[in-house]
Structures are given as C-alpha cells and as structure tokens.
C-alpha cells in the first residue's frame, strides 16, 4: 500500500529520520514508537501527503504521493491528526458527515447512505448518543472518539492515526485499539498508529517502526522489533519485558537512584 524509499525528514536544522526504507501492506497494523520530537507526527503527515519529504520518495499504490489528485487521495487515506480546535458550534453528526465529503463530488447535500455510515461510525465508537451535541461541549475523550469516528466514516484502505488513544479512559483505550486491530485484520486495511503505550501497541500491532530521534530507525514485525533492549535504547530509559500468562508486558525498569 505504502512504499517509502530512502526517506529523509528534518525540521529546521534537526535531522529526524535518514534513509528510511519502509513498506506497509494491506492487512498490516503498524505502531510507530519513539521519544518526543523523534519525528513520529512528521512522518505520519508526510505519508498523508500534508508535508513534502526532505529527500527520498513516498508511493501510495505504486504511484508517487504528490501525483495523486487530492480528491482521490481522500478516498485512499484518512488521517487522525493530533489536537483539535473547534471554532464553531457544529454538532457531532455534522462533524462526522464531513468525512463523507470525498464521495460527493458536486452534490450540495449528503445522501441517506452518508447518514447511515456516519451513524454506524458513531456507534462503533460508542458516541452515537452524542450525535446532536455541540462538539465544543464534549469532554476531551468524547471529542477524541468523535474524531476517530470521522476517520472510520471516511472508509479508506489506509488509516493514519496520531496518538488515537490519547485522552481516552482505560476501557475506551482498549476498545479503540481492538477496533484498529479489526480494521487491519478483518477488513484488510493498512493501519499506521502512533502510540506511547507499549503494551497496547504490542497487543494490536503486527509490525512496529522505531524512530530513535537521531535519524536511525528500526522497522519490522512486532515480535522482532519490540525487544526490551531496542525499546529501551529508543525511548531513553531501560525497559523490562515481563510475561504474564501468554501476554507480553513492557515496564520501565526501576530507576537505580531511588532504590
């Protein structure tokens, strides 16, 4: 689905990623892991086409990203950006309906189908009871789930999520991560998500991409890349891997200073 070759990313004078060769296929769920400022969001925005690369190429379905007309691109990939600012009092259902825009061409109004798809996306995120609420009155977690519902309603084969579980309570963190796993596993979509929760990331991902923050990176199947030593080096704090039943847990090693 996505083929990245020799990709360089930099912000100002800082080099974030150098020479990234990366392939994401349909049905794969990738976690992008790295410390703050390592370029995770920059990478996601680049793959979304919102930002030009600083070297190398990004191809979507064997066609350079820049040569996609943006209307067609909008039917191929959806992006959940980080942070939201709502200036106007749109209702939740109106917000989710905007995600249907790529399918309307010149129509002035949405169709019955769009309403059905938007409503079921709200149901999938358990926010359908908020449909008529003003988005500005929602709590942070509710607003985040509405934003994820937008991404679902866009119905694209490539789904890009920047910290989708941020601001969610524990139950909904687990629920949305399951949903993303299902998107990849059952519906054959390619999912790329940024997460700071190693355990949730490990539970749902088939693959992982580690950004070290100094240009280096590691990409591969989750069980190969998500190793305690690699993760510790990546995140700048020693990490221990614990087996609990058949689950793998990552916990930060105890800080020797306080022992």
């Amino acid at each position: 689905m996505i083929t990245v070759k020799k990709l360089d990313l930099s912000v100002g004078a800082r080099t974030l990623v150098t020479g990234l060769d990366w392939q994401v296929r349909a049905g794969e769920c990738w976690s992008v892991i790295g410390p703050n400022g390592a370029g995770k969001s920059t990478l996601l925005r680049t793959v979304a086409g919102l930002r030009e690369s600083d070297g190398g190429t990004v191809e979507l379905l064997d066609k350079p990203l820049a040569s996609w007309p943006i209307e067609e691109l909008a039917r191929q990939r959806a992006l959940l950006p980080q942070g939201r600012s709502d200036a106007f009092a749109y209702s939740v259902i109106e917000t989710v309906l905007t995600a249907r825009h790529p399918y309307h061409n010149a129509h002035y109004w949405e169709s019955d189908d769009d309403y059905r798809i938007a409503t079921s996306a709200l149901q999938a995120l358990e926010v359908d009871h908020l449909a008529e609420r003003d988005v500005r009155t929602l709590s942070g977690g509710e607003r985040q789930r509405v934003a994820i519902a937008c991404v679902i309603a866009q119905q694209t084969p490539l789904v890009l999520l920047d910290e989708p579980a941020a601001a969610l309570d524990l139950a909904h963190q687990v629920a949305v991560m399951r949903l993303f796993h299902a998107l990849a596993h059952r519906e054959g979509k390619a999912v790329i998500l940024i997460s700071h929760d190693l355990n949730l990331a490990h539970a749902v991902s088939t693959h992982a991409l580690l950004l070290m923050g100094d240009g280096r990176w590691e990409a591969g199947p989750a069980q190969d890349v998500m190793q305690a030593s690699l993760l510790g080096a990546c995140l700048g704090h020693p990490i221990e891997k614990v087996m609990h039943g058949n689950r793998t847990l990552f916990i930060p090693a105890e800080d020797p200073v306080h022992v």
Partner: protein
Amino acid sequence: MHIPTPISSVHHARPVDVRRRTLRIVGALAAASLAAVLFACSIGSVPLTPGELLQAAGALLGFSDVSLNATLLELRLHRALVAFGTGASLALAGVMMQALLRNPLADPYVLGISSGAAVGALGAMLFGALAWVVDAAALGGAVIVSALLFLLAQRDLRGGLPSDSNATSLLLTGVILAAGCGALITLMLSIAPDNRLRNMVFWLIGDLSGAQLRWMPWLVLGLAVLYALRSARGINLMAQHAEGAWTLGIRVSALRQGLFLSGAALAASAVTSAGSIGFVGLIIPHACRFAFGPDHRLLLPAAALAGGGFLVLADTLARTIVAPQQLPVGVITALIGVPVFLMQLHHIRKK
C-alpha cells in the same frame, strides 16, 4: 466495511429534513426581506397606503401617468435596494471572513479593507472631489489594501499545502494595515476644513442618504453568492477541520484565496456605496449562526438575506426617527448591534 450498520434509534436530522428546513428558512427570510423593502417604500414624510403603493408601482412600470407618489416610490425603492445590497454584501462578507480566519469574532472590516477605502474616500473629500471621484477613491483604497494583504500574507493564501490552521499571519497583517489606515484617517480629519468635516464623519459612520443605485455592487453580490453556494461544503470542512480539510480533498489554499477575494470585493463594494456601516457584518452572521446553526450551506444565503433586510429596516428607521433630519444609518446599526451582540455573547458564555 463490516461495522454493523443498523439505523439507530437516535433522532438525528435526516437529509431530507435538513433540505426542507433550509428551503423553509431561506424562503421565510426572502419573504421577510421583501416585506422590509415594501415597508421602507411606504414609510416616510408622506406615508403611502398599500393601494397608493400599487398605483405608484403601476405608474413606474408605465401603466399610468407618473405621479408624485410614483416619484416618492422610486426614490424610496432605490434607497431600499441600495440598503439591501449593502447589508447583504456586508453580512455575506462577515460569514466569509469568519470562516477564512476560523474566528467567530472576525467581520468584513477586520482585515483593514474598509479602512483602506476610508483613506481613499476621505482623501478625495479633503480635496473637495465630486461624488463619483470619492467612490472611485474608496474603491481604489480598498483594492490597494487587498493587494498589500495578498502580497504580504502569501504564506496563508498561497502555496500548495496548508501551513497555519487559522491564517494568523493574514489576520495580523490585516490588523496592522487597519491601524495604519486609522492613523491616516485621524490625520485627515484633524486637518480637514470645517465645512467638509461633516460629510467626512458621515461617510465614516456609514450613510445611505446620498447613495445611488448602481449595478456594480449587485454584480459583485451575485458573483459572491454563486461562489459561496458552490463552495459552502468546502467552507464547512475548513471551518471544522482547518488544515485537516486538505486530507478530505479540499484545496485549502485555493478556498482561502476565494474567500479572501470574495470577502474583500464585497466589503469594498459595500463601503464604496454607503461608507463603513458597522456591525451588520458582525451581528447578522452571529445571529444567523445562533438561530440556524453553523452549516454554511444554510448560513451563507440566510445571512445575506437577513443582512439585506436588516439594513433596509435600519435605514428606514434612520431617515424617519428624527425626521425631517436624517441620521447616518451606521449610528442605528451600532445602537442596535452593541446590545444585541453583548446579549448574545453573554448567552453563549452562560451555556
């Protein structure tokens, strides 16, 4: 898509309802605007009854001889139509500027386009220019400020990919240009001879008494309404998602350019015909958004109609309230606008 798709029991508006509601509201506002124009035609130093109005209309259309009533009707109708066009332009420009800057407090004057027009108009008045020269100078001033904005704020208005979600550099550039124009206006007012000062102040407040019915503002308004309806969906997306609208297939930079140019043209044409009438471009978009919701597919036509009707009524009030003296209409809009806006703001904060 394998997510279950039963229609839920949630009572949200169905598409057909939304369409019907839009038609109903726009139809009601159009009828109200027509009623406002008829009211404006019948009220004045010599009131006209509906029968006389009909007769006078017949005379104007050439069915009978021209009477005094027909002349009265013609004068009042012209003035009401100018008021309607100006009010509609200002309200539409207000909605566009608010969407462009993603800021509900923006108005058609926030970017300094009207201040540029004021510098031009007052400069011409200072040298005792003819009325049409004053209008041309106002238009020139508005065009110069718009061109400056377009050149300086290129980061927000041009380029392929969107950069800043709220067009901050455009807003700041506009505010500074407006401040500069404000200084020039004060300078001209302070050196103006007394006999010209009154006209200059009236122009600044906004006055429809000398306004002439011309086709140019209607052409601008017509084109802007067409553009607004064509891009209403995109405006909704930009208002909600900022640069995220790009990932949904909206050319954000092109839309910003279109909104900027339409808003600037509307503000320039309104200010050129009637001076800088305040508050219509701020209050009407707000009131409409409050009453009908933020969907621009309804908001844009509704605000245009409501703005037009409102200014027709405000102008009727301005020329009758202390008759035979005429007040500048800008005084009336501000006197109505300030309390209404404060009430609304307070209500929003209480919610």
